[in-house]
């Protein structure tokens, strides 16, 4: 066991954070941190990719299915409805799914890191 000199934390406002980081900079702690970063990045890329695919599918669908863009729902052409309003629920749903999963990933990380 080596002795270290105890000094004031670099920033007086964040002493809790500094001590937490000290604990997590151990080799084992870093394994958990790296795995958390990988999981969160994979999640973000999957959600972004899925959303972009849907975004791309909308104009393709309008272009490839003849008459679809002009067909009307409640007097409004479908093409306008889809691009003018239909995309927003998809954005909201993607965001909600992401937040739910990202929060769960963080909770799992916290359990692991505190069990040590």
């Amino acid at each position, binding site marked *: 066991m080596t002795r270290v000199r105890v000094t004031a934390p670099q920033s007086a406002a964040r002493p809790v954070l500094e001590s937490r980081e000290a604990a997590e900079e151990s080799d084992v702690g*870093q394994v958990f*941190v790296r795995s958390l970063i990988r999981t969160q990045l994979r999640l973000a890329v999957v959600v*972004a990719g899925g959303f972009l695919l849907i975004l791309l599918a909308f104009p393709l669908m309008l272009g490839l299915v003849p008459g679809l863009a002009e067909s009307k729902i409640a*007097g409004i*052409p479908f093409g306008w409805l889809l*691009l*003018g309003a239909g995309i*927003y629920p998809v*954005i909201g749903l993607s965001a909600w799914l992401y937040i739910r999963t990202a929060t769960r990933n963080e909770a799992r990380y916290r359990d692991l890191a505190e069990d040590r």
Partner: protein
Amino acid sequence: MNPVVGIAAFAAVSVATAVIGFYGLRISRTTGDFYVASRTVRPWWNASAIGGEYLSAASFLGVAGLILLSGTDGLWFPIGYTAGYLMLLLFVAAPLRRSGAYTIPDFTEVRLDSRAVRRVTSLAVVVVGWLYIVPQLHGAALTIRITTGLPSWVGSVAVVIVVCLTVVAGGMRSITFVQAFQYWLKLTALAVPIVFIALVLAGNGTPAMAEANTNPTGLAPTGPYQNISLLVALLFGTLGLPHVLVRFYTNPDGQSARRTTLIVLGLLSVFYLFPTAYGVAGRMFAPDLAQSGRSDALVLLLPGRLIGGPAGDMLSALVVAGAFAAFLSTTSGLVVSLAGVISQDVLGGSVRGFRLAALISATVPLGFAFMTDSLALAGSVGLVFAFTASTICPALLLGIWWRGLTDAGAIAGMVTGGVLCGGALVAGALSGPAASGAAMPQWLAQPAAWTVPAAFAVMILVSRATKDRVPRTLTKVMTRLHTPERPLATER
């Protein structure tokens, strides 16, 4: 339009802004208050404020004008503006908040442990901010000219004066209240008149909606390259906007930063339904505005045209008030974040320095606005997004997610992106005042599709070549960025 309507609407918005601003002055006392409202702003307030700050002249006037001009192609603007926030949520929101930095230059300095990176980032932030303020001032000039008949410069100067007064007086704390108020004002200002218009039209028997598909001008539709490049600019540009990112430091922790972004997405989705409705109505009832090159004034003129008399005047006053709320809120948000950067890097970070920096940040773009012609509002803001996506965005994304980024790589990438995209913007501006994109090659008119990948590529390659420059603080910083804050109950 009755000139009194325009002047009264502007005066009312300015007074409301100033009153809320001065009320906030009593709560802000320290440097911390001025910069980030002491990080105690609640998600709903914060989300409304982000919405208020983000919905600029381009969203309030430009989107409807563009839909009037180019139909469903114009719909990609509001989609991109909203989806940009999804990208911000996925890749930036929580880590950026957890970094604990005040501004984007703070973030890059902490992450890469380098003063040089900080200076380059500051430069990029200042350029983006100034470029973004110019279209707001053009929008104000247009609104004053159309609604009151006064000379254009009155509008730009009036906006700069009101912004300087509120920012110098209250800092960020009062700005949060002002911005939140202005989101709801903008939403009301678009929603109430369009509901009245719909009721009146329903009473008269509406012409077929199919007319919305007829093109009012002879302009060719934009091709797939333009739409894709625009989407790249908007999706990646939003997550580098300095006035949006500075808002994330006002969340208490990473979790609430995410919650705030979700609320923002909801607020934006609701808002953009209305400019779209104006654009569609404009295609049916005001195609002459597109033919006479005044499409950006569509939102301002439509209520008065379709509903006459005092009711029409009242509704016009409401949209004019909303338009000024848009110019004021975006400009003041940008001025606050620019002043934060300039005062910290050049003037030593005191409250006095912040005030001086705010004056500088607001008056320089005024000069640019006088020197340049007004392009289509939505288009010129789209180009600012392209610049942000080519400079700040790669540094942020790679800084947050890639351990291999070095200071040399970040600087090389930002300079490459800035020079390529800036060059394309300047070349585009010089190749003719018409600047409608018709005479310009597409890759120059909409550069994001190649400048953004170029910036990323240079940043990665140079970082690979300078592996020995990876900062020694890397482990500590990455841990702080990505691990959740401890809940208060279990703090040790």
